Each structure stands twice: as C-alpha cells, then as structure tokens.
C-alpha cells in the first residue's frame, strides 16, 4: 500500500508541512509537547499545556476526542442527551470547550485519526510517526521537544469455552459500540468477568433497553473491606460505586460475586451460558452450574495499559497488584526516560478521575521542565513532594538512561524549581489527589486480581488465541510436554499471540498458562499494523 489520496488528512495545510517520511521535519516547526492519546488524561494534559503557553500537538487515532471513556455518538446520530451514557460528562464538556478554544487559536494542533506507530529520539527531541485516516493509508510525522503518553488501555480477556461465538463480546466493546453507534449486542445480555467496568457496562446496557439477566463477578466484593481507610479517603469513588448499584437495582439486574461464565453455548451465535460459583481462587465449584438463556455476553477481566510506544523507548515498568504492567513514573508523571511523561491508564489503570488529575499534573511538569531547560533555574528549591509523596510503589524514577539522540529536556534535580515556580500549592494539591486516587486504584486491582483457578473452566478445545485458533490443549502441550516456560516460547511453538492482535487478546491467558502470575508488558516494535511501503520509505 502506498500513501493514497483518498484519505484526505483532517488538516491538509498543516499536514502538508509534516507529511513525507523521506523529508521528515523542519526543525524550526518543532512543537513543545506531543500528547499521544485524546482520552481523559491526554485531553487534560493538552489543554493544561496550552494554558501554560506550550505549543502542543495532540495526536489521536479516533476521529473525535474523548478516548474510550468519553466515546460518544457521531454527530449524524443527533444525540441530544449524550451524557445519559456517561459518568462525569461535565468534566469532558469542559475539556472539549477548552480544547476547542485552543485549537481555534492555534495553541493546540489536534491531529485526529492519527495513529502513532513509532516514536524515536531525534535532534534533541522526539519524532512521532503516525498513520493517517481510518485505514491508515497516509503518513505524517510530528517533531516535539517532549512527549506525553496517554495511550489508555484495552480489556484483559480470560478465555472460556465458547467465547469465540458471535454474540460474545468484550464488556468494553459492548460499551464502546453502544456509546458510539447506539447499538446493542443483543436483547438479553449476560455481563461477566471482573472489575468495576462490569457494573458500568451492565447499567448502560440496561438503561439502553437490554435485559441483563446477570452480572457475574469472579472476585468477592468483601475484599474491599481490607481497604477501609482507602475507601474512606475516596468518598467520590464510593458514591460512584453506589450509583451503579442503585441503577442496577432500578433495572432489577442481579449481581453475583464469586461467579463466572464458565461456558457459552450455541452454534452460529451464543444462545445460553453456564454460570458457576467460584471458590476463593476462582475454581468453579462442582455442582454449582446453572444455565442462563441469552443472546449476548459482555465479558472482560479488567483493563491493561497500552504500553507499546513507551516500552519501545525503554521506559521502565512496574507490576500492579492485579498483575498488570504500568509505566513507572515519579510524583510529577515523568517516566524513567528523560523527556517522556505519562498519564492516565498507562501509569496503572485507575479510571477517569485519576487520569484527569495525572494529565494536568504531567502538563504542569512539562511546562516547568521546558521552561527550565531554556532559563537557568535560580534555585534548587525542590518539589520536595517529589520524593516524599512518591505516588508509586516502586522507587521514584531516576535520571534516564540517555536516549540515542539525547532529548534536550533535562531531568536532573537542577530543574526541580520549575514545577514549584509553576504554582507550588496547586501542584501539591494535585500530587495529593493523584496519590489518593492511586491508592484506590491499587485496592481495586488487588480485589480483582485474576486468581489461579480460572483455568479450571477451560476445556481441551477452548480456543485461547482467537486470531490463530490455538486451543488450550495445544498450549498445554507446549507447556507440559515441550517445556515452554513463558509466553514467548508458547508463541513460537503454537503461534498463540502471533496473529493480527499481536497477543493483546490472548497474551494474559497464555502468560498465565505458561506459569506467569502477571500480564505481559507487550513489547511490540510497531504499535499497530503498518503498510510495508511506509516502512520502506521511512528507511530511506
């Protein structure tokens, strides 16, 4: 495929300056900050950065900003009450308004339908390569002094017999299709898996007219009691949970914890599921099975950050209590690589409120650091919060291993004054808010961590890898008879994880079946399929 003319770029004039991989970038046209992802974190970061005077480019794969969380019906659908499908809509409305002002004035360039597939250090900054248009037929590059990853998350799936039947869809997928297209996967939808998203999805489906005969949550909600102090510190989060509970009650949606869909039945599409009770380790309890008729299943076992781009740059990761990987960041959202910030689900799945706070905090840090890089700071007055209030379990990120071309953004303590100058009190408030919400996210992750017993509902012919159609028996053979001790070896022996989705769907299951107790980071040199023609030109 070559660059085609049938996908006009959203902003042809600006794009013309940037397009053309053989002749990449006019250094003088460099932006201060490139934000990758226009969900809650990316939006908050972009408008905050622009408020602080940074020339900001916001790149996003979707046609309209909002990310998965704030997905909304296309304008042609004429939704007069889109907020009916959303929690926290006013925050988005406010950000969208500010983004509109900034794009109109030119302080933010919003590049919609730009899917960033590679970021590399060049000329003391970062060069971002993007595919343009829904099918990625054209290319664009953006050069920026700093980059901020707000690339969000996708759903973690655990396979069960029949999960490849049409009508079995991701819980997040059902939510996304409903929010954007105003469609339902069926009339009678069983919601199953683990994590708070299930309640939000079930409430939305019921309010949109679907019957939800059951929400099956694999974890026990009682585990939240272990985090009483964290709960008490997050009344808004408690109220959010209670709100979902009330909405489900209103629609008579039963929620059953320590339960799972252990099989889906049907020929051409799902017609029923078997639900079983689980023990503490998620082992199905024999004799507890019951069959529920349905024409759709919405399933998901939590969310996993999309880390391909920062992982490729060498940003350090840590493992959350649920086994998911996340970028290690310091108290001002800096990753371990100088010049690279991260916010939102990339630093650990924690929801929109946390993402908004982190996005704003990250942008303030970028502004302070970039300013500091040009004006010698007069004081070492550190953001003492940086170490003391470290919001992460791991050690605070140290000065980075130098990237090949050496970004000009400095990361050392000599710039600690920067953030303080930008508004010391406000920053401390932000840091505290992030820490409080992060503690809640860690509690949720601990409660909903997939336990080992889930493999008890697999059968030999359960497909583990949807793309390559690799069964549980094939994976088990690779592990037990051929000695594969990790997901990569299983992949080489069985092709599980080698297909179109690059292991995003089966990776968590394959890793666990191969003996791991955590999700793979997902190192992928390219974050999405890229036409060979574009790669060839990039190499010239």
């Amino acid at each position: 495929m070559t660059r085609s003319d049938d996908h006009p770029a959203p902003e042809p004039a600006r794009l013309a300056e940037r397009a053309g991989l053989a002749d990449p970038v006019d250094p003088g046209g460099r932006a201060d900050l490139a934000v990758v992802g226009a969900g809650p974190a990316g939006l908050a970061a972009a408008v905050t950065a622009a408020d602080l005077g940074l020339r900001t480019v916001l790149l996003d794969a979707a046609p309209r900003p909002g990310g998965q969380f704030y997905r909304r019906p296309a304008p042609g659908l004429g939704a007069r009450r889109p907020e009916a499908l959303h929690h926290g809509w006013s925050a988005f409305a406010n950000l969208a308004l500010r983004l509109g002002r900034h794009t109109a004035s030119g302080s933010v360039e919003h590049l919609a339908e730009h899917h960033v597939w590679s970021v590399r250090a060049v000329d003391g900054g970062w060069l971002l390569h993007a595919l343009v248009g829904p099918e990625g037929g054209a290319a664009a590059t953006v050069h920026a002094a700093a980059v901020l990853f707000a690339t969000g998350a996708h759903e973690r799936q655990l396979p069960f017999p029949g999960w490849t039947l049409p009508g079995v869809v991701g819980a997040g997928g059902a939510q996304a299709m409903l929010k954007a297209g105003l469609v339902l996967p069926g009339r009678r939808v069983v919601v199953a898996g683990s994590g708070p998203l299930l309640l939000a999805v079930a409430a939305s489906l019921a309010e949109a007219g679907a019957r939800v005969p059951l929400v099956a949550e694999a974890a026990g909600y009682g585990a939240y009691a272990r985090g009483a102090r964290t709960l008490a510190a997050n009344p808004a989060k408690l109220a959010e949970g209670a709100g979902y509970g009330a909405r489900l009650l209103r629609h008579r949606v039963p929620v059953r914890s320590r339960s799972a869909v252990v099989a889906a039945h049907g020929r051409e599409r799902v017609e029923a599921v078997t639900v079983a009770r689980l023990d503490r380790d998620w082992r199905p309890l024999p004799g507890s099975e019951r069959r529920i008729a349905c024409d759709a299943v919405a399933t998901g076992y939590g969310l996993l950050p999309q880390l391909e781009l920062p992982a490729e740059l060498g940003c350090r990761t840590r493992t959350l209590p649920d086994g998911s990987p996340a970028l290690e960041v310091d108290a001002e959202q800096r990753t371990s690589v100088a010049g690279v910030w991260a916010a939102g689900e990339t630093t650990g799945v924690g929801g929109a409120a946390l993402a908004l706070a982190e996005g704003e905090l990250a942008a303030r840090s970028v502004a302070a650091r970039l300013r500091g890089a040009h004006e010698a700071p007069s004081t070492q007055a550190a953001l003492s919060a940086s170490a003391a209030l470290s919001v992460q379990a791991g050690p605070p990120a140290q000065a980075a291993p130098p990237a090949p071309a050496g970004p000009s953004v400095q990361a050392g303590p000599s710039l600690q004054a920067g953030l303080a100058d930008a508004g010391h009190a406000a920053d401390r408030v932000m840091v505290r808010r992030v820490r409080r919400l992060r503690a809640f996210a860690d509690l949720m992750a601990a409660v909903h961590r997939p336990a080992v017993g889930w493999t008890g509902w697999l059968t030999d012919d359960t497909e583990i890898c949807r793309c390559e159609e690799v069964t549980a028996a094939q994976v088990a053979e690779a592990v037990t008879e051929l000695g594969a001790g990790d997901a990569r070896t299983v992949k080489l022996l069985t092709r599980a994880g080698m297909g179109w989705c690059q292991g995003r769907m089966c990776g968590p299951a394959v890793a666990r079946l191969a003996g791991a107790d955590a999700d793979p980071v997902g190192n992928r040199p390219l974050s999405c399929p890229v036409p060979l023609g574009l790669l060839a030109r990039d190499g010239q």
Partner: protein
Amino acid sequence: MSRDPFDLVRARPEPGFTFDFDGAPVPALPGQTVAAALWASGRMSWRSTRVGGRPRGAFCGMGVCFDCLVVLDGRPNTRACLAPATPGAQATTQQGDGHDALR
C-alpha cells in the same frame, strides 16, 4: 425506562441510507460504523476463520482485536468496528485471510 439506545440519548438521527452486505441491503445511520449497522440489523458475524471456518464478528469494539475483519469495497482485512458505513458501500463476509481472490 428507555426502550432502546436512541431513546436513552434522545437521538434525532439524520436521514439513514443502506449499504450492501453479502447481497442484502443493510440500513445504517450517518456516523455509524459498518459493525454498528450490522449489529443493528441483527447480524453478529461477517468473517469465517482461516483454520476452522468459524463465524466471527466484532469483539473488542475498538480496533484492537481484529476479529471484525470484513471485505469492504473490495478491500479485505478492514476493521468493521472502525470503518464508517457509507451509502452504497459493498461489504462481504471475509473468508479466511480475505485473499482467496488472489490465489
């Protein structure tokens, strides 16, 4: 209580259109993806897998899983959950990797 998603958000869609799926007209509204229009018409599968020949449709709904691949206007391996439905478009069930015609 809402009867359907349009009722829930008080939608007043612009005039709809049809596109062609495996020879049958499928109604769609402006801004809906191919996958959304197919769901609305009760169709949940539009791909037959390479190995087992099993039916598949949209799964992740956000362009990540590639289960919803469809042949759209002659282009195989198009993600139906991302591709907007357009008036008069031709969509067909994708058989295997979608390149049978080239063999």
